[in-house]
């Protein structure tokens, strides 16, 4: 148990280094997110206020998250790396937390890139409360990364299961997105963040739930 934080760091760093070499998930995530923005903008009538910015950003981030976790887990299964990790004398909950940390890092990088593109190309207005806006979106990302990581593992491999991840992850992330979007918009406008406590509660439950459930649900 004492070694758990070190194990998490080692495994998460391993995933990030692999991503740095293979560039398998991050480019897909960023391009997927930006494509979402472009397609939305081509439709016209985009609300560029704080609430609109949060909604648009969340749409792009959900696309990126699903693409990223699915791609990352598929690559690890194809190479048999997941089997190797699961056979190591490390608690499987630790494996979940490491994968969650790696996915969250990739999502945070994607969020920065997509937000920058959104602000430059579409003039999305976040207003004066940039830190609050980013904080609310960041809290939401924690929940999304936890759910995405867990279900990418739960679904297992196999061509028949592709496409199911998006169906499972989107509705589970919807409450987090609703609360995070509203809080981000309110904070961007300089007000208080309604429901931030709820968001933290969701994050804790999703992360702890994933940590506890991973051992019972992950399969080679």
């Amino acid at each position: 148990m004492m070694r758990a934080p070190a194990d998490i760091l080692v495994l998460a760093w391993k995933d990030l280094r692999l991503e740095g070499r293979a560039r398998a998930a991050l480019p897909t995530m960023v391009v997927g997110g930006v494509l979402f923005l472009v397609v939305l903008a081509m439709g016209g009538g985009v609300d560029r206020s704080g609430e609109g910015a949060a909604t648009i950003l969340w749409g792009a981030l959900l696309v990126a998250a699903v693409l990223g976790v699915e791609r990352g887990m598929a690559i690890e299964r194809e190479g048999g790396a997941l089997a190797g990790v699961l056979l190591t004398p490390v608690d499987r909950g630790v494996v979940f937390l490491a994968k969650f940390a790696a996915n969250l890092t990739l999502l945070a990088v994607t969020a920065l890139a997509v937000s920058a593109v959104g602000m430059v190309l579409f003039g999305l207005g976040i207003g004066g409360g940039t830190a609050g806006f980013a904080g609310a979106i960041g809290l939401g990302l924690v929940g999304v990364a936890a759910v995405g990581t867990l279900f990418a593992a739960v679904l297992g491999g196999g061509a028949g299961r592709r496409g199911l991840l998006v169906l499972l992850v989107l509705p589970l992330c919807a409450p987090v997105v609703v609360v995070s979007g509203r809080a981000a918009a309110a904070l961007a406008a300089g007000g208080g963040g309604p429901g931030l406590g709820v968001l933290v509660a969701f994050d804790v439950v999703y992360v702890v739930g994933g940590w506890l459930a991973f051992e019972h649900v992950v399969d080679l």
Partner: protein
Amino acid sequence: MAASGVEAGGGTGGALLRRWAGVFGPVYWGLTGLLVVVGLVLVAFFTPVEAEMGAVQKIFYFHLPVAVAAFVPCFVVFAAGAVYLWHRSAWCDDLAHAAAEVAVLFCSVVLLTGMIWAKEAWGQWWTWSPRLTLSLVLWLLYVVYVVVRPLIGSPQRRAVVCAVYGVMAFLDVPLVYFSVRLMPEDIHPGRVDLAPAMVRVLLFWMVPVGLLCVGFIGARYRQLSVGRECGESA
């Protein structure tokens, strides 16, 4: 691996549950039907007509009990999913499956009756207020549960995925319930003051709606349980 191996027989829990599901016969449904008819008579003749909304307000006697009862199948999906992950008993998977279908039905009724109410009370069929949005999310969560189930070929994998999903989906229930307090901009009132006659009829409706909810879960569970014994893939 931990994910494999479903206890097909169901054990003591499965046997008890099947005996419980046997309660939902003609007597049960006859009594429930009678209570629904009595409830309709009470709503039609023994409740005052609301001054502003008129007769449409009477949908409230049905909308609120169904909304409360909708949380029951959601909880059953959660509890059965959690027990499945612990014990890997097939009856838990069947019970969660049955409850998820009833949750879809009840959430659909809540949304539809709510929309009729909203059109009369607020002049529009739908608003993106927190409670309405989260109620729609709740409906979507269980619709996805029902839609995804048959798409996963392996029975063991399907049961595990649905159990984890069902446990996590339940988190939206307290959020729906507390949304009015947590996000005060909600169009839903925090509390409603009703005349005593209205309260009595409203409380009466909780009984037939509750019986319908439990009965649907039990009857569907029995179907699924028999289907599993006959080798059908759920």
